[in-house]
Protein backbone atom coordinates (compact mmCIF):
# COMPACT_ATOMS: atom_id res chain seq x y z
CA UNK A 1 0.00 0.00 0.00
CA UNK A 2 2.16 2.87 -1.16
CA UNK A 3 1.55 6.49 -0.37
CA UNK A 4 0.32 7.23 -3.82
CA UNK A 5 -2.42 4.64 -3.61
CA UNK A 6 -3.57 5.89 -0.20
CA UNK A 7 -3.90 9.43 -1.48
CA UNK A 8 -5.65 8.34 -4.65
CA UNK A 9 -8.16 6.30 -2.65
CA UNK A 10 -8.94 9.19 -0.33
CA UNK A 11 -9.16 11.64 -3.23
CA UNK A 12 -11.52 9.35 -5.15
CA UNK A 13 -13.68 9.02 -2.05
CA UNK A 14 -13.92 12.79 -1.57
CA UNK A 15 -14.64 13.37 -5.25
CA UNK A 16 -17.43 10.83 -5.01
CA UNK A 17 -19.02 12.64 -2.08
CA UNK A 18 -18.76 16.02 -3.77
CA UNK A 19 -20.11 14.57 -7.01
CA UNK A 20 -23.06 13.08 -5.16
CA UNK A 21 -23.73 16.46 -3.58
CA UNK A 22 -23.64 18.06 -6.99
CA UNK A 23 -20.57 20.17 -6.20
CA UNK A 24 -18.12 18.59 -8.62
CA UNK A 25 -17.47 21.99 -10.06
CA UNK A 26 -15.40 23.13 -7.15
CA UNK A 27 -13.23 20.03 -6.90
CA UNK A 28 -10.30 21.91 -8.32
CA UNK A 29 -10.48 24.35 -5.36
CA UNK A 30 -11.27 21.78 -2.70
CA UNK A 31 -8.36 19.50 -3.52
CA UNK A 32 -5.48 21.90 -2.75
CA UNK A 33 -7.35 23.40 0.19
CA UNK A 34 -7.85 19.99 1.76
CA UNK A 35 -4.23 19.13 1.11
CA UNK A 36 -3.11 22.33 2.77
CA UNK A 37 -5.39 21.76 5.77
CA UNK A 38 -4.13 18.20 6.15
CA UNK A 39 -0.56 19.44 5.93
CA UNK A 40 -1.25 22.13 8.51
CA UNK A 41 -2.80 19.66 10.93
CA UNK A 42 -0.03 17.17 10.51
CA UNK A 43 2.74 19.71 10.92
CA UNK A 44 1.14 21.21 14.00
CA UNK A 45 1.02 17.81 15.63
CA UNK A 46 4.58 17.16 14.56
CA UNK A 47 5.78 20.44 16.06
CA UNK A 48 4.17 19.55 19.35
CA UNK A 49 5.91 16.21 19.20
CA UNK A 50 9.18 17.99 18.41
CA UNK A 51 8.99 20.28 21.42
CA UNK A 52 8.53 17.22 23.61
CA UNK A 53 11.32 15.43 21.76
CA UNK A 54 13.74 18.29 22.30
CA UNK A 55 13.12 18.25 26.02
CA UNK A 56 13.44 14.49 26.25
CA UNK A 57 16.55 14.38 24.06
CA UNK A 58 18.25 17.11 26.05
CA UNK A 59 17.26 15.41 29.30
CA UNK A 60 18.62 12.00 28.39
CA UNK A 61 21.82 13.53 27.09
CA UNK A 62 22.20 15.06 30.52
CA UNK A 63 21.42 11.85 32.42
CA UNK A 64 18.09 13.04 33.64
CA UNK A 65 14.45 12.36 32.90
CA UNK A 66 12.65 15.03 30.96
CA UNK A 67 8.97 15.79 31.35
CA UNK A 68 7.18 12.69 32.58
CA UNK A 69 4.27 13.94 34.63
CA UNK A 70 1.85 15.44 32.12
CA UNK A 71 0.46 12.49 30.21
CA UNK A 72 2.28 9.24 29.50
CA UNK A 73 6.00 9.96 29.14
CA UNK A 74 5.12 13.62 29.36
CA UNK A 75 3.66 13.72 25.86
CA UNK A 76 1.07 16.30 26.80
CA UNK A 77 3.71 18.70 28.09
CA UNK A 78 3.55 20.79 24.93
CA UNK A 79 -0.20 21.08 25.30
CA UNK A 80 0.32 22.39 28.82
CA UNK A 81 2.92 24.87 27.57
CA UNK A 82 0.65 26.01 24.76
CA UNK A 83 -2.23 26.56 27.16
CA UNK A 84 0.06 28.51 29.46
CA UNK A 85 1.22 30.75 26.65
CA UNK A 86 -2.25 31.45 25.39
CA UNK A 87 -3.58 32.56 28.74
CA UNK A 88 -0.66 34.91 29.34
CA UNK A 89 -1.20 38.62 29.29
CA UNK A 90 -0.26 40.20 26.00
CA UNK A 91 2.11 42.95 27.14
CA UNK A 92 2.72 45.50 24.42
CA UNK A 93 5.07 48.48 24.62
CA UNK A 94 3.22 51.74 24.31
CA UNK A 95 5.36 53.40 21.68
CA UNK A 96 5.60 50.44 19.37
CA UNK A 97 5.06 50.62 15.65
CA UNK A 98 1.76 48.81 15.48
CA UNK A 99 1.67 47.26 12.03
CA UNK A 100 5.16 45.74 11.91
CA UNK A 101 4.79 44.70 15.55
CA UNK A 102 1.69 42.68 14.79
CA UNK A 103 2.82 41.33 11.45
CA UNK A 104 6.27 40.14 12.53
CA UNK A 105 5.30 36.99 14.44
CA UNK A 106 2.70 36.06 11.87
CA UNK A 107 5.20 36.47 9.07
CA UNK A 108 7.83 34.45 10.90
CA UNK A 109 5.37 31.62 11.29
CA UNK A 110 3.80 31.75 7.85
CA UNK A 111 7.02 32.17 5.90
CA UNK A 112 8.59 29.01 7.19
CA UNK A 113 5.33 27.13 7.13
CA UNK A 114 4.78 27.87 3.49
CA UNK A 115 7.98 25.99 2.76
CA UNK A 116 6.34 22.72 3.74
CA UNK A 117 4.12 22.86 0.68
CA UNK A 118 6.66 21.27 -1.65
CA UNK A 119 8.13 18.61 0.62
CA UNK A 120 7.36 15.11 -0.66
CA UNK A 121 6.55 12.75 2.18
CA UNK A 122 6.03 9.86 -0.18
CA UNK A 123 5.73 9.32 -3.88
CA UNK A 124 2.39 11.03 -4.20
CA UNK A 125 2.04 12.74 -0.84
CA UNK A 126 2.98 16.30 -1.52
CA UNK A 127 0.74 19.32 -1.55
CA UNK A 128 2.16 20.72 -4.74
CA UNK A 129 5.16 19.22 -6.43
CA UNK A 130 6.33 22.46 -8.01
CA UNK A 131 8.99 22.06 -10.63
CA UNK A 132 10.91 24.94 -8.99
CA UNK A 133 10.62 23.28 -5.59
CA UNK A 134 14.07 24.01 -4.16
CA UNK A 135 14.09 27.57 -5.38
CA UNK A 136 10.65 28.13 -3.90
CA UNK A 137 11.70 26.87 -0.47
CA UNK A 138 14.81 29.01 -0.31
CA UNK A 139 12.92 32.06 -1.47
CA UNK A 140 10.02 31.65 0.93
CA UNK A 141 12.12 30.95 4.01
CA UNK A 142 14.03 34.17 3.38
CA UNK A 143 10.95 36.07 4.51
CA UNK A 144 11.99 35.39 8.09
CA UNK A 145 14.59 38.15 7.74
CA UNK A 146 11.83 40.68 7.21
CA UNK A 147 9.97 39.29 10.19
CA UNK A 148 13.01 39.61 12.44
CA UNK A 149 13.86 43.10 11.29
CA UNK A 150 10.28 44.27 11.76
CA UNK A 151 10.19 42.74 15.22
CA UNK A 152 13.42 44.42 16.21
CA UNK A 153 12.48 47.81 14.78
CA UNK A 154 8.91 48.01 15.95
CA UNK A 155 9.68 47.09 19.54
CA UNK A 156 10.98 50.59 20.18
CA UNK A 157 13.79 49.07 22.23
CA UNK A 158 17.43 49.81 21.53
CA UNK A 159 18.55 46.36 22.56
CA UNK A 160 15.86 44.53 20.62
CA UNK A 161 16.91 46.50 17.55
CA UNK A 162 20.52 45.47 17.97
CA UNK A 163 19.50 41.88 18.49
CA UNK A 164 17.34 42.03 15.41
CA UNK A 165 20.19 43.45 13.33
CA UNK A 166 22.58 40.77 14.48
CA UNK A 167 20.08 38.03 13.84
CA UNK A 168 19.29 39.37 10.38
CA UNK A 169 22.98 39.62 9.52
CA UNK A 170 23.47 36.04 10.64
CA UNK A 171 20.56 34.72 8.59
CA UNK A 172 21.50 36.62 5.47
CA UNK A 173 25.12 35.50 5.59
CA UNK A 174 24.21 31.86 6.08
CA UNK A 175 21.81 31.87 3.15
CA UNK A 176 24.80 31.82 0.81
CA UNK A 177 26.37 28.52 1.93
CA UNK A 178 22.87 27.07 2.21
CA UNK A 179 22.22 27.68 -1.47
CA UNK A 180 25.75 26.91 -2.56
CA UNK A 181 25.62 23.50 -0.94
CA UNK A 182 22.51 22.67 -2.93
CA UNK A 183 23.95 23.78 -6.27
CA UNK A 184 25.97 20.60 -6.92
CA UNK A 185 22.79 18.58 -6.42
CA UNK A 186 20.99 20.65 -8.96
CA UNK A 187 23.92 20.30 -11.33
CA UNK A 188 23.93 16.55 -10.99
CA UNK A 189 20.21 15.93 -11.22
CA UNK A 190 19.36 18.74 -13.59
CA UNK A 191 16.07 19.48 -11.87
CA UNK A 192 14.78 21.72 -9.09
CA UNK A 193 11.77 19.53 -8.46
CA UNK A 194 12.14 17.71 -5.15
CA UNK A 195 10.31 14.66 -6.40
CA UNK A 196 12.74 14.53 -9.31
CA UNK A 197 15.73 14.66 -7.00
CA UNK A 198 14.43 11.70 -5.02
CA UNK A 199 13.76 9.82 -8.26
CA UNK A 200 17.36 10.42 -9.30
CA UNK A 201 18.54 9.00 -5.99
CA UNK A 202 16.39 5.94 -6.55
CA UNK A 203 18.42 5.13 -9.57
CA UNK A 204 21.84 6.09 -8.21
CA UNK A 205 23.13 6.01 -4.67
CA UNK A 206 21.92 8.60 -2.17
CA UNK A 207 23.80 11.84 -2.40
CA UNK A 208 25.22 11.66 1.08
CA UNK A 209 26.99 8.41 0.22
CA UNK A 210 27.97 9.11 -3.33
CA UNK A 211 29.48 12.53 -3.52
CA UNK A 212 27.95 15.17 -1.40
CA UNK A 213 28.74 14.31 2.20
CA UNK A 214 30.52 17.66 2.60
CA UNK A 215 27.51 19.44 1.17
CA UNK A 216 25.30 17.66 3.70
CA UNK A 217 27.30 18.98 6.61
CA UNK A 218 27.47 22.47 5.17
CA UNK A 219 23.72 22.38 4.66
CA UNK A 220 23.00 21.20 8.19
CA UNK A 221 25.29 23.85 9.67
CA UNK A 222 23.77 26.61 7.58
CA UNK A 223 20.28 25.39 8.42
CA UNK A 224 21.04 25.53 12.14
CA UNK A 225 22.25 29.07 11.72
CA UNK A 226 19.15 29.97 9.73
CA UNK A 227 16.94 28.80 12.54
CA UNK A 228 18.89 30.80 15.14
CA UNK A 229 19.69 27.68 17.07
CA UNK A 230 22.79 26.84 19.03
CA UNK A 231 25.64 26.98 18.43
CA UNK A 232 24.51 30.07 16.56
CA UNK A 233 21.96 31.39 19.00
CA UNK A 234 23.67 34.57 20.11
CA UNK A 235 20.47 36.58 19.62
CA UNK A 236 18.64 34.24 21.96
CA UNK A 237 21.39 33.63 24.46
CA UNK A 238 22.45 37.17 25.00
CA UNK A 239 18.83 37.99 25.26
CA UNK A 240 19.45 37.55 28.93
CA UNK A 241 21.46 40.67 28.66
CA UNK A 242 20.91 42.65 25.51
CA UNK A 243 17.65 41.28 24.29
CA UNK A 244 16.91 39.40 21.15
CA UNK A 245 14.39 40.62 18.67
CA UNK A 246 11.60 38.96 20.59
CA UNK A 247 12.12 40.74 23.92
CA UNK A 248 9.00 42.81 23.78
CA UNK A 249 6.74 39.95 22.81
CA UNK A 250 4.79 37.79 25.22
CA UNK A 251 2.11 35.18 25.12
CA UNK A 252 0.92 33.88 21.79
CA UNK A 253 3.12 36.22 19.74
CA UNK A 254 6.19 34.83 21.51
CA UNK A 255 4.90 31.34 20.86
CA UNK A 256 4.63 32.15 17.16
CA UNK A 257 8.30 33.06 16.99
CA UNK A 258 9.31 29.83 18.61
CA UNK A 259 6.97 27.78 16.51
CA UNK A 260 8.49 29.52 13.52
CA UNK A 261 11.91 28.44 14.68
CA UNK A 262 10.85 24.82 15.05
CA UNK A 263 9.14 24.80 11.68
CA UNK A 264 12.28 26.26 10.12
CA UNK A 265 14.13 23.30 11.63
CA UNK A 266 11.55 20.91 10.20
CA UNK A 267 11.67 22.48 6.74
CA UNK A 268 15.47 22.45 6.61
CA UNK A 269 15.64 18.89 7.87
CA UNK A 270 13.00 17.79 5.40
CA UNK A 271 14.95 19.37 2.56
CA UNK A 272 18.12 17.69 3.81
CA UNK A 273 16.36 14.33 3.96
CA UNK A 274 14.85 14.74 0.51
CA UNK A 275 17.96 15.99 -1.20
CA UNK A 276 20.74 14.11 0.56
CA UNK A 277 19.22 11.12 2.25
CA UNK A 278 16.90 9.84 -0.41
CA UNK A 279 13.52 11.12 0.73
CA UNK A 280 11.04 8.32 0.96
CA UNK A 281 13.41 5.64 -0.33
CA UNK A 282 14.06 2.75 2.02
CA UNK A 283 17.53 2.02 3.32
CA UNK A 284 19.23 -0.03 0.59
CA UNK A 285 19.56 -3.26 2.55
CA UNK A 286 16.25 -2.97 4.38
CA UNK A 287 14.04 -2.74 1.32
CA UNK A 288 12.56 -6.16 1.99
CA UNK A 289 10.52 -4.76 4.89
CA UNK A 290 8.05 -3.15 2.47
CA UNK A 291 7.28 -0.29 4.79
CA UNK A 292 5.47 2.63 3.16
CA UNK A 293 7.81 5.37 2.01
CA UNK A 294 6.16 7.75 4.43
CA UNK A 295 7.55 5.81 7.39
CA UNK A 296 11.07 5.95 5.98
CA UNK A 297 10.76 9.67 5.41
CA UNK A 298 9.63 10.33 8.96
CA UNK A 299 12.37 8.10 10.39
CA UNK A 300 15.05 9.96 8.47
CA UNK A 301 13.50 13.28 9.38
CA UNK A 302 13.58 12.45 13.07
CA UNK A 303 17.20 11.40 12.70
CA UNK A 304 18.26 14.67 11.10
CA UNK A 305 16.30 16.66 13.67
CA UNK A 306 18.01 14.66 16.41
CA UNK A 307 21.34 15.74 14.89
CA UNK A 308 20.32 19.37 15.01
CA UNK A 309 19.19 19.00 18.62
CA UNK A 310 22.42 17.24 19.54
CA UNK A 311 24.31 20.25 18.16
CA UNK A 312 22.44 22.52 20.51
CA UNK A 313 23.15 20.55 23.65
CA UNK A 314 26.73 19.56 22.95
CA UNK A 315 28.46 22.60 21.54
CA UNK A 316 29.19 25.95 23.13
CA UNK A 317 28.04 29.17 21.54
CA UNK A 318 29.97 31.15 19.00
CA UNK A 319 30.54 34.83 19.53
CA UNK A 320 28.93 37.08 16.92
CA UNK A 321 32.08 37.99 15.03
CA UNK A 322 33.31 34.40 15.16
CA UNK A 323 29.97 33.31 13.78
CA UNK A 324 30.27 35.64 10.80
CA UNK A 325 33.91 34.60 10.31
CA UNK A 326 32.90 31.00 10.26
CA UNK A 327 30.14 31.57 7.74
CA UNK A 328 32.08 33.72 5.31
CA UNK A 329 35.60 32.36 5.67
CA UNK A 330 35.01 28.67 6.15
CA UNK A 331 31.62 27.56 4.88
CA UNK A 332 31.47 29.61 1.70
CA UNK A 333 34.92 28.69 0.37
CA UNK A 334 34.30 25.02 1.05
CA UNK A 335 30.90 25.20 -0.62
CA UNK A 336 32.38 26.93 -3.67
CA UNK A 337 35.15 24.35 -3.86
CA UNK A 338 32.50 21.67 -3.69
CA UNK A 339 30.66 23.22 -6.64
CA UNK A 340 33.84 23.38 -8.69
CA UNK A 341 34.79 19.82 -7.83
CA UNK A 342 31.35 18.53 -8.75
CA UNK A 343 31.53 20.42 -12.00
CA UNK A 344 34.85 18.81 -12.88
CA UNK A 345 33.56 15.36 -12.02
CA UNK A 346 30.47 15.84 -14.17
CA UNK A 347 32.60 17.04 -17.09
CA UNK A 348 34.91 14.07 -16.78
CA UNK A 349 32.25 11.43 -16.34
CA UNK A 350 29.65 12.60 -18.76
CA UNK A 351 31.72 14.62 -21.14
CA UNK A 352 29.66 17.74 -20.74
CA UNK A 353 26.61 18.97 -18.87
Amino acid at each position, binding site marked *: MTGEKIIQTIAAFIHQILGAAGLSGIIFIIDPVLCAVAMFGFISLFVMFLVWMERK*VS*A*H*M*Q*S*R*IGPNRVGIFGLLQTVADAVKLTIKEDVKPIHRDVIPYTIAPILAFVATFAGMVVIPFDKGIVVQDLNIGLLYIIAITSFTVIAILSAGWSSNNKFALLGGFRSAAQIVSYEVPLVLSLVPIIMTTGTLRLGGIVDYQAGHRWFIFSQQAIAF*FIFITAATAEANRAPFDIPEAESELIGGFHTEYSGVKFAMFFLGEYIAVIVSSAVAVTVFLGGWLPLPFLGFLHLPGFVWFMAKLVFVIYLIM*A*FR*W*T*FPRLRVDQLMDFGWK*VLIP*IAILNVLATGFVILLLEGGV
Partner: protein
Amino acid sequence: MGAIFQYFKNILVGFWNLILGLSVTTKYFLSMKTNTQQYPEEKLPLPARSRSMIKLIYDGDKDQFNCVACMMCAKACPNSCIKLEGVRDAGGKRRMTTFKLDFSTCIFCGYCVEACGFDALTFVSEEYENSVYKRGSLLQDEQAMKWVRPAHLAPKPEEPAKVETSAPAAAGA
Protein backbone atom coordinates in the same frame (compact mmCIF):
# COMPACT_ATOMS: atom_id res chain seq x y z
CA MET B 1 51.01 26.93 0.23
CA GLY B 2 51.58 26.15 3.89
CA ALA B 3 48.79 28.47 4.89
CA ILE B 4 46.30 26.73 2.64
CA PHE B 5 47.34 23.35 3.98
CA GLN B 6 47.00 24.67 7.54
CA TYR B 7 43.54 26.01 6.73
CA PHE B 8 42.26 22.65 5.57
CA LYS B 9 43.98 20.82 8.39
CA ASN B 10 42.31 23.12 10.93
CA ILE B 11 38.94 22.44 9.42
CA LEU B 12 39.42 18.69 9.46
CA VAL B 13 40.80 18.60 12.99
CA GLY B 14 37.98 20.83 14.21
CA PHE B 15 35.40 18.66 12.49
CA TRP B 16 36.82 15.52 14.05
CA ASN B 17 36.75 17.03 17.54
CA LEU B 18 33.15 18.09 17.04
CA ILE B 19 32.30 14.50 16.18
CA LEU B 20 34.09 13.33 19.33
CA GLY B 21 32.04 15.71 21.43
CA LEU B 22 28.85 14.50 19.78
CA SER B 23 29.82 10.92 20.50
CA VAL B 24 29.96 11.64 24.24
CA THR B 25 26.47 13.08 24.41
CA THR B 26 25.06 10.49 22.03
CA LYS B 27 26.50 7.76 24.22
CA TYR B 28 24.65 9.15 27.23
CA PHE B 29 21.50 9.60 25.20
CA LEU B 30 21.47 6.04 23.94
CA SER B 31 22.22 4.54 27.33
CA MET B 32 18.97 6.07 28.67
CA LYS B 33 20.31 5.83 32.21
CA THR B 34 19.21 8.67 34.42
CA ASN B 35 20.40 9.82 37.80
CA THR B 36 17.11 11.28 38.81
CA GLN B 37 15.48 10.27 42.03
CA GLN B 38 11.79 10.91 41.44
CA TYR B 39 11.20 12.40 44.81
CA PRO B 40 7.86 11.91 46.36
CA GLU B 41 7.57 8.41 44.95
CA GLU B 42 11.14 7.33 45.61
CA LYS B 43 12.48 8.38 48.95
CA LEU B 44 15.97 7.14 49.47
CA PRO B 45 16.92 6.67 53.10
CA LEU B 46 19.36 9.23 54.45
CA PRO B 47 22.56 8.08 56.10
CA ALA B 48 22.39 7.44 59.83
CA ARG B 49 24.53 10.44 60.69
CA SER B 50 22.44 12.92 58.69
CA ARG B 51 21.87 16.10 60.61
CA SER B 52 18.18 16.30 59.76
CA MET B 53 16.03 17.22 62.70
CA ILE B 54 16.87 17.66 66.35
CA LYS B 55 14.75 15.78 68.81
CA LEU B 56 14.57 15.59 72.58
CA ILE B 57 14.85 12.04 73.74
CA TYR B 58 12.07 10.87 75.99
CA ASP B 59 12.76 7.82 78.07
CA GLY B 60 9.68 5.65 77.87
CA ASP B 61 10.67 3.51 80.88
CA LYS B 62 11.31 6.32 83.30
CA ASP B 63 8.54 8.45 81.72
CA GLN B 64 10.60 11.60 81.58
CA PHE B 65 12.96 13.49 79.30
CA ASN B 66 16.64 12.67 79.66
CA CYS B 67 17.43 16.36 79.78
CA VAL B 68 18.66 17.76 83.10
CA ALA B 69 18.85 21.42 82.03
CA CYS B 70 22.64 21.63 82.38
CA MET B 71 22.59 24.45 79.79
CA MET B 72 25.58 23.08 77.86
CA CYS B 73 23.61 22.98 74.60
CA ALA B 74 22.41 26.56 75.03
CA LYS B 75 25.98 27.70 75.59
CA ALA B 76 27.27 25.68 72.65
CA CYS B 77 24.79 26.99 70.13
CA PRO B 78 26.38 29.66 67.89
CA ASN B 79 23.05 31.34 67.23
CA SER B 80 21.47 31.10 70.67
CA CYS B 81 18.55 29.07 69.38
CA ILE B 82 17.98 27.11 72.57
CA LYS B 83 16.17 28.46 75.61
CA LEU B 84 15.50 26.12 78.45
CA GLU B 85 14.63 26.10 82.12
CA GLY B 86 14.94 23.51 84.81
CA VAL B 87 14.15 22.95 88.47
CA ARG B 88 15.68 20.93 91.19
CA ASP B 89 13.15 18.38 92.32
CA ALA B 90 12.63 16.85 95.75
CA GLY B 91 15.45 14.29 95.47
CA GLY B 92 18.00 17.02 94.62
CA LYS B 93 18.07 16.09 90.90
CA ARG B 94 17.68 18.66 88.19
CA ARG B 95 14.90 18.14 85.66
CA MET B 96 14.03 20.16 82.62
CA THR B 97 10.72 22.01 82.66
CA THR B 98 10.66 23.89 79.35
CA PHE B 99 12.84 23.57 76.26
CA LYS B 100 12.47 25.74 73.25
CA LEU B 101 14.51 25.47 70.08
CA ASP B 102 14.04 28.02 67.32
CA PHE B 103 14.50 26.13 64.09
CA SER B 104 14.25 29.28 62.01
CA THR B 105 17.71 30.28 63.22
CA CYS B 106 19.15 26.82 63.70
CA ILE B 107 21.94 25.98 61.28
CA PHE B 108 22.05 22.27 62.15
CA CYS B 109 25.72 22.44 63.07
CA GLY B 110 25.31 19.72 65.68
CA TYR B 111 27.09 21.43 68.56
CA CYS B 112 24.13 21.01 70.91
CA VAL B 113 23.96 17.28 70.24
CA GLU B 114 27.71 16.97 70.76
CA ALA B 115 27.73 19.08 73.90
CA CYS B 116 24.98 17.13 75.61
CA GLY B 117 26.42 14.74 78.17
CA PHE B 118 23.13 13.15 79.13
CA ASP B 119 21.96 11.65 75.84
CA ALA B 120 19.07 14.08 75.71
CA LEU B 121 19.40 15.50 72.19
CA THR B 122 19.82 13.65 68.97
CA PHE B 123 19.46 13.98 65.22
CA VAL B 124 16.72 11.86 63.70
CA SER B 125 17.72 11.32 60.12
CA GLU B 126 14.31 10.14 58.88
CA GLU B 127 12.60 13.43 59.57
CA TYR B 128 13.71 15.84 56.93
CA GLU B 129 10.46 17.12 55.50
CA ASN B 130 10.11 20.01 57.86
CA SER B 131 8.51 22.75 55.79
CA VAL B 132 5.86 24.71 57.60
CA TYR B 133 3.28 27.26 56.55
CA LYS B 134 3.83 29.68 59.41
CA ARG B 135 7.22 30.76 60.60
CA GLY B 136 6.00 30.73 64.18
CA SER B 137 5.62 26.98 64.13
CA LEU B 138 9.38 26.68 63.74
CA LEU B 139 9.81 27.64 67.37
CA GLN B 140 9.31 24.18 68.81
CA ASP B 141 8.91 23.31 72.46
CA GLU B 142 9.69 20.06 74.19
CA GLN B 143 6.37 18.44 73.31
CA ALA B 144 6.90 19.07 69.60
CA MET B 145 10.46 17.76 69.81
CA LYS B 146 9.63 14.68 71.86
CA TRP B 147 11.06 11.48 70.48
CA VAL B 148 11.23 8.03 71.96
CA ARG B 149 14.20 6.03 70.85
CA PRO B 150 13.21 2.75 69.19
CA ALA B 151 14.74 -0.37 70.74
CA HIS B 152 16.94 -1.20 67.78
CA LEU B 153 18.64 2.18 67.97
CA ALA B 154 19.59 1.99 71.64
CA PRO B 155 23.27 2.82 72.05
CA LYS B 156 25.52 -0.16 72.56
CA PRO B 157 27.79 -0.01 75.60
CA GLU B 158 31.06 0.00 73.62
CA GLU B 159 29.90 2.74 71.29
CA PRO B 160 28.58 5.78 73.14
CA ALA B 161 25.70 7.57 71.51
CA LYS B 162 27.50 10.85 71.42
CA VAL B 163 30.55 11.80 69.43
CA GLU B 164 33.86 10.54 70.75
CA THR B 165 35.82 13.68 71.34
CA SER B 166 38.12 14.16 74.25
CA ALA B 167 36.74 17.62 74.91
CA PRO B 168 33.37 17.40 76.63
CA ALA B 169 32.67 21.01 75.86
CA ALA B 170 33.90 21.49 72.34
CA ALA B 171 32.19 24.85 72.50
CA GLY B 172 33.27 27.14 75.24
CA ALA B 173 31.50 29.83 77.12
